[in-house]
């Protein structure tokens, strides 16, 4: 038991206290560096220090205390950025209302989701965790760095601008049709709107209310400024505050949308209310309206070759990224899936085949373009001096299906390393054997504790959490 206790204690330390210190420097030498923004540099050294990319060049000196990695024959690329994910969250949709701008993904992050580790093993370092698409105006998203083992607060991307999810089309209207009624369960309530017309009205109504709300605060502040006494500030409205931020350009809109007509509706509505849609998510028909999207200034985040899974996803082509990118639209590939999040390099590679993107353009769809869409383009997404040391070392070119990451760094710290992973397996198996032999993990003999005693979850809803 002593061994176990020591091991558990060391895990606690590893997950908690060690978080604060900056990572010791690492010098990666003789790598093929895919900077994404400045082409490919062969036989090049990169120094990671103080959590940043400190130097790029040849013949770099390792500072004191640095670990040196000989990366001869290996490829270094920026950490992959997935602009659309629902990973590591204990809830995805607050679908009960048409407008749920008050809910926050950041409140329900699950930093223990093992998909995080899988994503790291695929070279992914940053996720945009979005609310689902159940309603026209969904909740606030969270941009995270995948620092597996840390708390949710330590994983939030520092300084990333806040955002919000909108949704158009079938997923929103689907809330009103084909709902399965289960006997004994509360009957689902139909929810407005049940058409695309209604979705436009929901947006128009919500932003009109947000303008009124903003005015009430402006009036209050003006009266305070005039020296009026005994004033009470207006009621804070958590639903409308984020929409005011959208109007003021401080909160980014990520809008789930498929059809060209609904995307145009949103862009025109945004023009009318004076804000810019940051990204059109999915946007499978974006190729039909690429100039209009470019003119508005929106980006798109789409799938490389996944469509046909519902009516509004039929009219898709594999050239969507190429067409929009050539029209000047900032375009990215996303996973929208816990498993696919670790294979985004393959999706990027498909764009070389469909549309003739250069390697750098293809890589940009999973790195720098996503960083820009999330408002962190000055921090991550490319290998440049001064940027965060979020980089991935690969055993081969990342656009090859035969390649896989060897080591994944975030802020200069290793969060995945294939050799460490292998080395850890024996210890984990030993721990498992020891745990399985412990009394609470043994199947009880029938005489003990009566029927069903044991792993039965807490019976009453007082103890909510799943165990």
């Amino acid at each position: 038991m002593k061994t176990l206790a020591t091991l558990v204690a060391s895990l606690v330390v590893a997950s908690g206290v060690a978080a604060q210190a900056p990572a010791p420097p690492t010098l990666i030498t003789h790598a093929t560096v895919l900077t994404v923004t400045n082409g490919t540099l062969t036989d090049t050294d990169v120094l990671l220090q103080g959590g940043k990319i400190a130097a790029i060049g040849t013949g770099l000196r390792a500072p004191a205390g640095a670990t040196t990695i000989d990366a001869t024959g290996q490829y270094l690329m920026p950490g992959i950025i997935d602009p659309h994910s629902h990973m590591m969250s204990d809830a995805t949709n607050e679908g009960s209302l048409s407008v749920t701008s008050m809910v926050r993904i950041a409140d329900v992050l699950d930093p223990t989701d093992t998909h995080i580790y899988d994503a790291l093993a695929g070279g992914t370092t940053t996720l945009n965790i979005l609310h689902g698409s159940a309603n026209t105006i969904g909740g606030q998203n969270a941009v995270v760095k995948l620092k597996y083992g840390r708390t949710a607060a330590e994983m939030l991307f520092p300084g990333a601008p806040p955002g919000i999810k909108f949704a158009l089309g079938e997923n929103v209207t689907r809330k009103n049709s084909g709902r399965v009624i289960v006997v004994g369960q509360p009957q689902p309530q139909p929810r407005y709107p049940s058409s695309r017309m209604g979705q436009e009205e929901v947006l128009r109504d919500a932003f009109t209310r947000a303008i009124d709300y903003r005015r009430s605060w402006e009036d209050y502040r003006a009266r305070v400024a005039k020296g009026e006494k005994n004033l009470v500030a207006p009621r804070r409205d958590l639903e409308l505050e984020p929409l005011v931020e959208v109007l003021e350009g401080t909160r980014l809109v990520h809008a789930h949308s498929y059809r060209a007509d609904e995307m145009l509706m949103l862009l025109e509505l945004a023009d009318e209310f004076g804000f810019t849609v940051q990204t059109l998510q999915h946007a499978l028909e974006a190729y039909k309206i690429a100039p209009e999207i470019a003119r508005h200034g929106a980006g798109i985040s789409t799938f490389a070759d996944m469509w046909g899974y519902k009516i509004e996803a039929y009219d898709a082509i594999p050239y969507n990224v190429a067409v929009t990118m050539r029209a000047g639209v900032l375009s990215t590939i996303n996973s929208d899936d816990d498993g696919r999040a670790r294979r985004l390099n393959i999706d990027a590679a498909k764009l070389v085949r469909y549309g003739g993107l250069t390697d750098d353009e293809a890589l940009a769809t999973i790195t720098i373009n996503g960083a820009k869409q999330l408002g962190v383009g000055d921090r991550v997404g490319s290998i440049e001096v001064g940027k965060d040391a979020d980089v991935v070392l690969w055993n081969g070119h990342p656009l090859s299906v035969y390649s896989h990451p060897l080591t994944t760094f975030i802020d200069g710290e290793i969060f995945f390393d294939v050799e460490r992973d292998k080395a850890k397996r024996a210890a984990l198996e030993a721990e498992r054997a020891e745990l399985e032999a412990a009394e609470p993990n043994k199947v009880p003999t029938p005489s003990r504790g009566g029927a069903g005693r044991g792993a039965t979850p807490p019976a009453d809803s007082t103890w909510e959490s799943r165990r």
Partner: protein
Amino acid sequence: MHLPVRLAGVALLVAAVATPGAAQHAPVPPSTWAITGARIEPVSGPAIAKGTIVIRDGLIVAVGANVTAPADARLIDGSGMTVYPGLIDAAGSLGFPSGNAGGGGGGGAASRATAPNSNYGPGMQAELRAVDQLDPSATAFTAARGAGVTAALTAPAAGIFRGTSALIALRDAPVGELVIRDGIAQHIGFSRGGGGGFGGGGGYPGSLMGVFAQLRQELLDAQHYRDLQAAYARNPRGMVRPDHDPTLAALQPVIAGTQPVVLFANSEREIIRALDLAAEFGLRPIIAGGTEAWKVADRIKAANAPVLLSIDFPRKSAGGGAAAGRGGRSGADSTPEPLRVLRDRVDQPKGAGRLAAAGVRVAFVSGNDYGELPANLRRAVEGGLDKAAALRAMTLEPARLFGVADRLGTIEAGKIANLTLVTGDLFEAGGKVSQVFIDGERYEIPAAATPAAQAPRRAPASAEDDQAAGTDDHDHPAR
């Protein structure tokens, strides 16, 4: 039942005159007791190897090695017994219809209680009070008493704002006689509520995200209400009268930090979220559940938050249920249990000791599994908690936390006569609760009846309870 003895005597006399036959079948319970020759663990001081406790009219009137039993006392031979302060279950829903006490139904029923004239929906009505809703069935407290539990903190098991809890004595008596202290804390849960939630399952909030948004909005509204009422009280002239709102009025002591909030949170991340919310609004947090509290002991200590710790420790089940078939690794199809599940079962009993070592105040919660309560107490001690601390966690510590240490939690003259009598030792295998005193009223525990048999456990709660209704709504085609 708790009539002063003289009054009861008068009543008996009157009854005897009127219907002499009936009187013979309604004996008045004795109000004076002396437990002699027992080992006494008073908690307020060192153990007394052989002593006497005298109870009169519901109170302890004397305790010590040299105390003599009064002539009118009913004597209990305490040799071979250990007497403890009556155990206190620091959280639960005992006494609620279809709450977690009776073993049936579900917490959902409790959430149907609604406050009159509320502007907020069911599950969000902070003005609810446990004392108004208590409706214990005839056997509601039998299992708890069988495990030596004499008092419990109780509140509805479902909802977000669940209203204020009460500390109650687990007697078979009218509700008014049960309440030891009302308005102890506002209870807050982070689930949509048991059994499909409120609002018919389709209402807001329908997810954990919505729960947090609703909590924030309601607390902000309470602050706004405070400011409006204060402004109107200062000078009503020229100001439109603010509405009265019972929910926001009830939240005033919560946002002022004078009434604590009991926050139900088990996992590390749930506890962090709860503490963050408390810090955001300046609430006085008490964590309830806390199965992973030991992992964040430093944060809990820094927040000065006590933990009402569930000692319903998990064990691998014999079969049936979701875990079945995952147990053995022999079969080709069997999936090994996740390491985190295996670790959790081993770690949980060590949690109390770790929290105590970190300086966190801990009171124990049975988790409603009264059949396993004595064994779980022993597991907490085996897991590293000092035996005296374990006893305090079910006696003096909850009494202090709930503001009743001047009347409950130790065996001292003048305190409420809540006692737990154990044949042998509560912390030794074979120790058996033989009787309890509650408000000086004796309840004998039938030897044959195991508490577990009296309180069948409910079917496992759905793991989906906390999940949003529409996780299928994003765009992976496979979903």
